[in-house]
């Protein structure tokens, strides 16, 4: 019997019990939908994280101060005050394969511009920051090394701050007041978007490190040092060399632990990729479970169908159907169920992915591969779970089948 005839028979059989057919397909629909959605979310998260790594700066590492213990109380990572501006210069000048190093300290403050004001983060750094973090200036300029050397009162606004303080533009050249200190705005940074941790990176005002220390915080140390390696391959080397240099500069003996730590940002982001992949894997697990449940549903309905149509099978055999004709007939029917379910599932998956993106603001990325995979898995489910009922139908004794009541 030709495939077109088999398909026609299958289609008629499924249309005969349309409600039952749709209910049977539900498991496959959910399963394939979950395949598409989970892969879209997984791929989307990965792409977003990669983009975030890009936005952080190329081959970035960060030096953070170590913990101090006072009277038995450990104040935790970052509480030491041993990192200094000369450390930054030393790293930039002596560690090989370093593209740049920039200090970073911050405080929170109300920033006032004329009649408006905005509570934000005020960060102190040096001009290297723009290259180390790959952060461009949209208007005006970033402050110069001379501004750092002389601790001038200049500021560069993040895009969010500029928008809120100067909604109609004209930020460059204006004056903003931070903790009663007037700063001249010399530039506005390009928008960078959310950080990998969901913080708005553009909600910031950058000032020279020395100005921050002298005028706003009174600190003499720096909170972090951002170091950028020349190539991704050089990152471990730079980590190692930076650690040795800082130990030397901080006069640590062999028995003393580091009073700082050097972290590879890319590594941290890799953990996030792994996390998102775990989430995707979980969804994939749901997909597999629903596909199996869907398959069992198909098998169940096909067994019912074989029983209901025992006489029909007997008659078909009497007029010349061979075992394999009957086998194919029921297999094609199960496959049709699974395929139609798979196609609906792909549609549902695309809708769900789109919905997740629009309503949940999750990054999603639908790949052609996931659609193919979804469809192929529905086919596999159809064959695997349709085979047993089809085989049972094919193995029927024509006489017994014809007499079946």
């Amino acid at each position, binding site marked *: 019997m030709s495939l077109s005839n088999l398909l026609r028979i299958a289609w008629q059989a499924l249309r005969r019990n349309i409600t039952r057919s749709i209910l049977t397909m539900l498991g496959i629909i959910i399963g394939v939908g979950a395949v598409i959605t989970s892969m879209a979310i997984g791929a989307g998260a990965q792409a977003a994280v990669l983009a975030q790594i890009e936005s952080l700066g190329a081959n970035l590492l960060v030096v953070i101060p170590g913990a101090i213990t006072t009277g038995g109380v450990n104040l935790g990572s970052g509480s030491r005050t041993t990192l200094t501006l000369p450390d930054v210069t030393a790293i930039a000048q002596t560690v090989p394969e370093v593209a740049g190093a920039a200090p970073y300290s911050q405080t929170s403050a109300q920033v006032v511009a004329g009649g408006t004001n905005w509570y934000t983060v005020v960060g102190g750094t040096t001009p290297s920051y723009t290259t180390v973090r790959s952060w461009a200036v949209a208007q005006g300029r970033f402050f110069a090394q001379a501004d750092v050397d002389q601790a001038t009162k200049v500021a560069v606004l993040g895009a969010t701050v500029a928008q809120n303080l100067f909604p109609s533009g004209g930020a460059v050249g204006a004056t903003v007041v931070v903790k009663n200190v007037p700063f001249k705005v010399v530039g506005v940074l390009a928008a960078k978007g959310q950080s990998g941790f969901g913080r708005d990176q553009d909600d910031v005002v950058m000032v020279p490190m020395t100005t921050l220390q002298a005028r706003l915080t009174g600190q003499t140390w720096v909170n972090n040092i951002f170091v950028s390696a020349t190539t991704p391959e050089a990152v471990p080397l730079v980590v190692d060399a930076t650690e040795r240099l800082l130990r030397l500069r901080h006069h640590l003996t062999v028995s003393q632990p580091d009073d700082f730590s050097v972290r590879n940002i890319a590594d941290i982001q890799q953990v996030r990729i792994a996390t998102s992949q775990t989430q995707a894997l979980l969804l994939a697990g749901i997909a597999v479970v629903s596909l199996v449940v869907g398959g069992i549903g198909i098998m169940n309905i096909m067994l019912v169908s074989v029983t209901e149509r025992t006489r029909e099978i*007997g*008659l078909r055999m*009497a*007029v010349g*159907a061979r075992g394999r004709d009957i086998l194919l007939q029921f297999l094609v029917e199960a496959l049709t169920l699974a395929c139609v379910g798979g196609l609906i599932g792909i549609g549902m998956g695309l809708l769900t992915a789109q919905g997740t993106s629009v309503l949940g603001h999750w990054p999603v990325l639908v790949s052609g591969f996931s659609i193919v995979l979804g469809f192929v898995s529905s086919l596999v489910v159809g064959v695997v779970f349709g085979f047993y009922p089809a085989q049972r139908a094919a193995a029927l*004794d024509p006489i017994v089948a014809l007499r079946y009541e």
Partner: protein
Amino acid sequence: MTGDATTIAPAPVGTVDRAGAAGADPLIDVRDLTKVYGEGATAIRALRGVSLVVRRGEFVAIMGPSGSGKSTFMHLLGCLDRPTSGSYRLAGREVSRLSRDELALVRNRQIGFVFQSFNLLARTTAQENVELPLLYAGVPRDTRVARARELLQQVGLGDRLGHRPSELSGGQQQRVAIARGLANGAPLLMADEPTGNLDSASSAEIMTLFQHLNRVQGITVVLVTHDMDIAAWSERVATFKDGLIVDDRPSAEAVPSAVREAATRGALTPEVRA
């Protein structure tokens, strides 16, 4: 089909020279056929060595009480089952040891079945029901459609092609089943109580059709019945008892003439048309 009403009406049974008009070529040649169900002490010997020769063009009725083995014999003749021992030559070919698939092919090409309960596919048109054997024979669609239409016209249902079984009377359904049995041009039509679910008027119609097919088209008909009125339409009656044929003679001798005349009277107004 060129037959008119007069050629369809049953001639007095027994006047046809069986061996003559139809030729001496046996269509069915069964020797010492046995069928045993089960094993050991609980084994049931449904057939205990049956021999029967049916020539091409014969119209044979198989009678016997239930449990006599006539149904088992029909299944074997119909190639729906295989005998435990013995030989069965159908159209000169030994078929008693064929595989399931080979038997399916024999059923498809050599045998048309007519059942008591019609066994038409529900929700499927008369046309499609008749096409069914052609579908399994791999006949192309155009030929299938044309052949099914022709056969339905032949059994007087040319205006019911698109009707489903539920829209047809019992007699009409059985005529669709007969058309289906003829679809592949099989030389042998096997009918198992074909009138069991029909009233007497419809029964007469169906029997007239069988007789017409037998006389005009030379189709060999083997019919199982327990009803003497139905057996009266045949030329020869084989009677089963306890797994053996205990009686085999022309129906003129087997069926009392009063019964025969009463039973076949309904055939005077057949619905078969060209």
